[in-house]
């Protein structure tokens, strides 16, 4: 289960958050924990270099892409390596939409489309589409395989 996907800017403000299967009262805690994790560790990290953390049986993989840091939290089948797949799909979709590692401005300009991509990538707590081209087709309301 992918418990959370979170986008934040350099100051730790949340840009997008998606929770699944996390009780409402826990979400704020998770949010602060992730933001702090990023603040402590993401300085000077290269774009798309993956960082890892865990808490009890929950895994966290996070990275930075341009001005935006991305956090993915999962458990069970979504261990640190599966989450790496998820975050890889997300970063490549974001890069695809923004054309390059985004500045915060650019990210916000493309906000709607990024939300749609995320909708195709993570579907009710499970990873769905991973191929960049397929995602691109789907957010334009085209079938996954063209004929």
């Amino acid at each position, binding site marked *: 289960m992918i418990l959370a996907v979170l986008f934040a*800017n350099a*100051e730790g*403000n*949340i*840009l*997008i*958050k*998606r929770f699944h299967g996390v*009780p*409402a*009262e*826990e979400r*704020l*805690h*998770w*949010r*602060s*924990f992730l*933001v*702090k994790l*990023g603040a*402590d*560790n993401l300085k000077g990290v290269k774009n798309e270099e993956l960082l*890892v*953390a865990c*808490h*009890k*049986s*929950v895994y966290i*993989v996070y990275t930075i892409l341009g001005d935006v840091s991305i956090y993915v939290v999962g*458990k069970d*089948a979504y*261990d*640190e*390596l*599966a*989450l*790496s*797949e998820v975050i890889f799909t997300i970063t490549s979709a974001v890069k695809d939409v923004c054309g390059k590692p985004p500045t915060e*401005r*650019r990210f*916000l*300009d493309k*906000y*709607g489309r990024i*939300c749609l991509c995320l909708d195709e990538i993570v*579907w*009710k707590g*499970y990873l*769905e*589409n*991973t191929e960049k081209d397929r995602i691109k087709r789907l*957010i*334009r*309301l*085209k*079938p996954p*395989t*063209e*004929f």
Partner: protein
Amino acid sequence: MADSSGTTLMDLITADPTPATSSSSSSTSAPPPSATSSTSLSSTLGKPATEKKSKRATLMQIQNDTISAAKAAVRTNIMPQKQKKKPVSYSQLARSIHELAATSDQRSSQRQLVQHVFPKLAVYNSVDPSLAPSLLMLNQQCEDKSVLRYVYYYLARILSDTGSQGLSSGGGIPTPNWDALADIDAVGGVTRADVVPRIIEQLSAEATNADVEFHARRLQSLKALTYAPSTNSDILSRLYEIVFGILEKVGDPSQKKKKGILGGKGGDKESIIRSNLQYASLSALRRLPLDPGNPAFLHYAVLGISSADPVAVRNALEIVSEIAARDPYAVAMALGKQVQPGGALQDVLHLHDVLARVSLARLCCTISRAKALDERPDIRSQFNSVLYQLLLDPSERVCFEAILCVLGKYDSAERTEERASGWYRLTREILKLPDASSKESSKDKSQKIKRPQPLIKLVMRRLESSFRSFSRPVLHAAARVVQEMGKSRAAAFALGIQDVDEGAHVNTFADASDLNDSDESTHPESIRRTSSVSNGTAGRDTIAGMLASLMEVVRTTVACECVYVRAMVIKALIWMQGPFDSFDELESIIASELSDPAWSAGLLNDVLLTLHARFKASPDMAVTLLEIARIFATKVPGKVDADVLQLLWKTCLVGAGPDGKHKALEAVTIVLDLPPPQPGSMLGLTSVDRVSASDPKSALALQRLVQAAVWFLGENANYAASEYAWESATPPGTALMMLDADKMVAAASSRNPTLAGALTRLQRCAFSGSWEALTTMAIRSGEPFRLQIYEFLHTLAQGGLQSQLSDVHLSNGEDQGASGTGLGVLLSPMIKVLDEMYSAQDDLIKEVRNHDNAKKEWTDDELKKLYETHERLLDLVSLFCYVPRTKYLPLGPISAKLIDIYRTRHNISASTGLSDPAVATGISDLIYESSKTPAAAEPDALDDDLVNAWAANLGDDGLWGNNAPAMNRVNEFLAGAGTDAPEVDEENIISRPSVSYDDMWAKTLLETTELEEDDAKSLGSSSPDSTGSVETSISSHFGGMSYPSLFSSRPNSYGADKASRGSGPSIYEGISSPIREEPPPYSSPGMYRNESFENPLAGTGSRSFESQDDERISSGNPQFGSALYDFTAGGDDELSLTAGEEVEIEYEVDGWFYVKKKRPGRDGKMAGLVPVLYVNQP
């Protein structure tokens, strides 16, 4: 970040997009302040539907108010230092949608929607159901695909439960609870309940539309439908109907579709459409609740494995493997030939989808281990061979999953047998590569290249190469795999699987895999030990050799920058550590790791919990684990959870066995040897035995740890040393009075070095409140220990021993107390008890002599007097600690016969009965209940060991099964549970200026000591529930520390009341005055120091929670405030407020207050989060 100031979420919804985009290069130029976008919008495009207008306007008004207020909060929260800029409000966006929906055939409206309105709407947390009609209208009338894609997105969001478990979409801007708003709007707002059926209706119609041109929309409507609340069985059955309807049409596994596989473009239109639909319906099915009773699930999922769409294959496999966990037999039968070479499962091996292969691994593992298939070894071995092939997978994720499956770890349930056989499999089995898998004889054929490989060799090689990776997730995962390997290995040794011979050459298995069962050595331990010593020569081909080389690589990984990776490595090392291996290396690794401030408390406790798990797996490890725990106690006293640490001491002490007990106690006493933390001192960093607590917080924590250790020693020293007064044959101590102190110490240590050691340590830390522990020991031990303690306490009370006690300086740097003024008062009750015991013993000896000399029989009166003294002393003693009343002889062994005579004569049973003051005060109820030891009620049936164990609070029922918080933490850890959010450390909060939970918590910890005195005085009585805390607080007062789970954190006048009311005068007369003269908070707790009675494992549980709660409330100085404005909760965790309402502020987090109301509000909620700005703080 000056230039990023113009780019926030608020900007996104600010104004119209054109200036924003143009300013993207130079973001300093602020977009024109505007309500312009919406006004211009409505002026150019506005043809609002007039008949609805008035209704909507009211609704909008309310929404508008709420949201702009909410935004005020958000603005200050998210971007405090920004100049004012008026964002597009939600209601403006909503109005635009309504208006644009009406003109959706125009290109300009479409563009507005796609570029402006929809993206901005995404910023909000949730979508208003009143938008649904317009969205549905757009869905029907609009042709533009981009618009439609957004429409599906928003319809799905309206369908999804934004509440507790749903997908809460959206970014940082909270939205109100729309349904509540609609309720308020008496004119008739739109709620979810109104629109959901309509949305489902329309989407279902689309999902079943067979028009070819429509099929992309079918996929999206199916997807949106899965967000519908699955609790509604009508909707659910309808969804199943649609999905299975589609699958029925497309799922026919006609052979021609196979051509389409991986070809993608080569397929004809029809089959592509079919595979697209199959994909969408399988994906939808995956999101719906699994119905194992429905054979259609399995049927279509199995068909789906052959789908041309890789994502469909993955979803199908996930469904199948989930069903397999429940019914492996049915799945195996349904899969039939798919598993054989050329079958669909074999194709998955080459599928470019990692998660599909992971599911395949799980599926194969479940089936190949299924008991239901015991009679079909052929099927099991087929699946097993696919699993083994996955070990060679290029993706680490897949390979590791396969390794874990082999190791017997495939769900959260831990079964020792499964794990043990996992280790056996790993070390013994041979991987025959795919070509060779059919026949054994082919082994010879492909000897050079495809020579069958021992599984372990492959796995080790793979792991070693993973440890060379630069990717932190890979390192973390590899370390985790090694940890799981250690668990399986530990299980194998615990079950004594004799064949696990790590010294043997693995290739011997490969060559003689059929006959190796009998001829291998039967002494794995000895061989392993020797081979690990002679690693260099053992060569790489023994299991021990391979393990050694793997562990070498694992150890180097502690150089990783990431603390989480290192934590996992340390856990792996702990698990791979055997009970007989030398652990110097591990010790130094851990010691140097713990000196790193980067370790968070959560991580450290995780490792500590790992020690628990390790102990549970192999109790032989007790001593080693204690040594490791000692490093934690010395290195990071401020960060570890003292409860969990203490539980570890306790369990290890029980598990250590007779030989280990001394060592176990040593590991605890080392804490008492720690010199006081020296501010700023860095000297201790390299040595294990020096403490590093250089800041006040860890100094405080160390103090708590010391108190825990003192308490622990007092309680358990007799148990560990197996020294009990009631089992001792040594005559009472009068004879020893003649000895001088040195000789006495010598006598003591020659008699029982363990106890003597503990005693010395306790004496040295007398200022940490160890007199209580010492008294317990004195009462429970025979001579010469009792005398030794008596002397010590005596001198301590007189204050004359100061020069001899120079250690005191070291142990806490405070010496004024030893002058006798402070301590005498505290010590006198204890000395009194011992005094009474000794003088009664003297009297008895005199009497006996008199009787002997005069050759007189004992008269009944004399016996009665003796018996009464005996009982009185027993009562007294019971106030200090638990002793078995039937066995304990305060008058010494010689009294036994006389008391026995009196008892038989008067037919007195020796049971505790109501005469026990503990019973009289009601304390014992609590104790007996919590410890659940029936022995207490039937003293005649007492078994020696049980009594002694219980005396040490170690009743075996208490070890793993009750509700102490530490126990919960351990059990939860062992069960692998927990998705709750980690606590954020209170130090180094850089990112957010507001106070976090932990700050508050830390503050409460510091504040309680001041407050508790006041509380104690002001609280006339407390609830009966708090009987649990009727124990001493001498230590907490004296040291100004509190150790919540052991000592009550605040003294409680309840105890005093109760005692004076319940226990009658005799006790007070017995021990006379000093007690009465003391101020209330000190006196009675001093007398009624009963915590040693309790089984701390059970008894402290509820109590420590209680006290924490108390502290939070009491210390927080409850802050009250009143609501400035109305606030409507936008989520489950939020609380609606009415302006003027009184609230109690619990804490602040990220710009939100957690508040409590006096009365539940309209929605029945009492507590929740509200924006800080909404509350007026006095």
